[in-house]
């Protein structure tokens, strides 16, 4: 078991970026030692939780073992030993699946810097391999939804079908242009602009934070591809035909523009017309 101090240093170091001096091998070694300690210490606890943790029956894959080490270094303080959750700090991750890890860690929302209404998007702390390892660990711990392989998940998406699904399921929170919107009491639906195919897919599968879950039973993988195609090709990578889009905030910025640009320009003109020459 690592000390509290150790853990914090590990997390901070990751937030700051990778310290160059620490070689991969040494880190592995340290992780292994800590893993061993954690396993020994956690052993007692398992007897109580055993029924809910089926993953113990089969040995973990090596990726999951690595993921567990990473977890114990950076996530355990909030999500608890074996991702059982810590009351008031972080929920249990048993059964959330690798989709959830991929979304939360891949978009930098986890690890959180501090407790607040909602974790904001930021540059990810872990690299893709590490995210995969963490995901594998969580997956093997309790199962759950997984994002299919591949980077481009919207190859054969149908834009029109995706648009219809987007408007009925997504636009009420993420807005017509995918720019996001406010929810109650400081929560918000984030902008979809920086989201990758995999992150959108993972978000639909896992329902992060206050987003409802759109499982494969409700929106099929083909429909998900349609939605992602609509978001990426119509909203994110499509030039607006009518000039600068004013942030796609709807009529509020249009109203601002008519005063700040239109009225201001014309009032200056009136000043010039009526000015003494």
């Amino acid at each position, binding site marked *: 078991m690592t000390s509290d101090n150790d853990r914090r240093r590990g997390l901070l170091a990751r937030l700051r970026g990778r310290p160059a001096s620490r070689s991969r091998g040494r880190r592995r070694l340290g992780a292994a030692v800590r893993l061993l300690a954690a396993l020994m210490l956690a052993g007692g606890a398992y007897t109580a939780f055993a029924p809910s943790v089926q993953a113990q029956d089969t040995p973990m894959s090596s990726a999951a073992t690595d993921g567990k080490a990473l977890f114990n270094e950076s996530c355990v303080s909030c999500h608890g030993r074996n991702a059982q959750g810590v009351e008031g700090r972080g929920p249990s991750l048993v059964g959330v699946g690798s989709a959830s890890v991929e979304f939360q860690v891949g978009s930098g929302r986890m690890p959180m810097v501090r407790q607040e209404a909602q974790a904001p998007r930021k540059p990810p702390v872990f690299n893709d391999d590490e995210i995969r390892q963490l995901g594998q660990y969580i997956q093997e711990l309790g199962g759950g939804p997984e994002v299919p392989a591949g980077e481009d998940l919207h190859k054969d998406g149908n834009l029109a079908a995706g648009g219809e699904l987007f408007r009925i399921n997504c636009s009420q929170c993420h807005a017509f242009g995918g720019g996001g*919107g406010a*929810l109650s009491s400081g929560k918000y639906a984030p902008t979809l602009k920086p989201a990758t195919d995999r992150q959108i897919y993972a978000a639909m599968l896992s329902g992060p934070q206050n987003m409802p879950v759109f499982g494969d*039973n409700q929106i099929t993988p083909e429909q998900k591809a349609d939605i992602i195609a609509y978001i990426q090709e119509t909203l994110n990578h499509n030039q607006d035909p009518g*000039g600068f889009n004013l942030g796609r905030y709807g009529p509020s910025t249009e109203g601002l523009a008519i005063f700040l640009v239109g009225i201001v320009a014309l009032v200056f003109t009136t000043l010039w017309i009526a000015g003494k020459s």
Partner: protein
Amino acid sequence: MTTTHPGNAGGDQPVDLDDPDLSRFDIVRAGAREDDIEIVHYEPQVVPGSKAERRLSRTVASFFLLTGASATAFLAIYIWWPWEYELGHGGDKWYTPLLGVTLGISLLGIGFGVLTWGKKLLPKEVSVQDRHEGVVNERDRTITGQTMLYMADELGVKRRPLLGVSLLAGLAPVGAVAAAPLVGGLISQPHKNNQMFTTGFAPMEGGQKVRLVREDGRPIRPADISAGGQITVFPGIDHGVSNKYADSPALLIHLRDADALEAREANVRIGHDDFMWGNFAAYSKICTHAGCPASLYEQQTNRLLCPCHQSQFLITDNAKPIFGPASRRLPQLPIFVDDEGYFVATSDYTETVGPDFWERP
């Protein structure tokens, strides 16, 4: 003619227009005087033929030429620029901006050209016009007043009261005739077929219950919605997924165990004992405030937010409004699962769907 400060002398007599010594400006000034306008200051801004005049003329001319160039560019772009819309990035996205900019520049060119012409090249002047309105012509008032009274006398409405009364009696229905087709044509009974109190979920004739369907018409099984998920559902009838049944859509929510427990208890408190099925609850998607689709479901806090006026409803407490201007719960749709395993509506909503109105209760 430089600055002129004419006294009043001669101002009142009309000038002799045939006087050969009279300049055109003299005639203009004399004409202005006839309208009680005194041109008190008239001063050319530029000396004719001066360098300043040539410079300003060049400025104005270049504005006009800019207009010509820009308008030509507009036409060329309008005709030859590839404008057919295609998704993605491309030249067609610049079509509208280019048209706007060239049109704008050409119009601004004329505008500022004309403005410079008027402002810099024409003589400055100060004229004073009398308003005359302070002077009330009492004589005219009396004459007009008397004329009108005379007309009334001649008509003799006072002497012949029958005429006045019968005219009014005749005209009043004529006015009503003008209004009648408009009102009669437009008016529409709001409670025809009890339409304000029923939705597409009302059991069909013969008592057959209506299924809940998705936007593509497929019925829904409980397994289709994950815990923490929601789906917009429609009545599974003809045209159920259309604006014809604008009041019908509901949000079917699969609550988590703990939340569902709370929601069921709340249901029991208000007598909606069997409105939920398992952990599933369905609430009208149409806000009771102004009718927007209240559909921003927060699966952790179980709040439902309406994006139009920010009313917030607590799903675990029978969609009770907890914030914002809405004053009424979202109506709950009683649901169960039929023998084939699909959701159906036990009955129609038990409360009125949509915005409040006077005779709603």
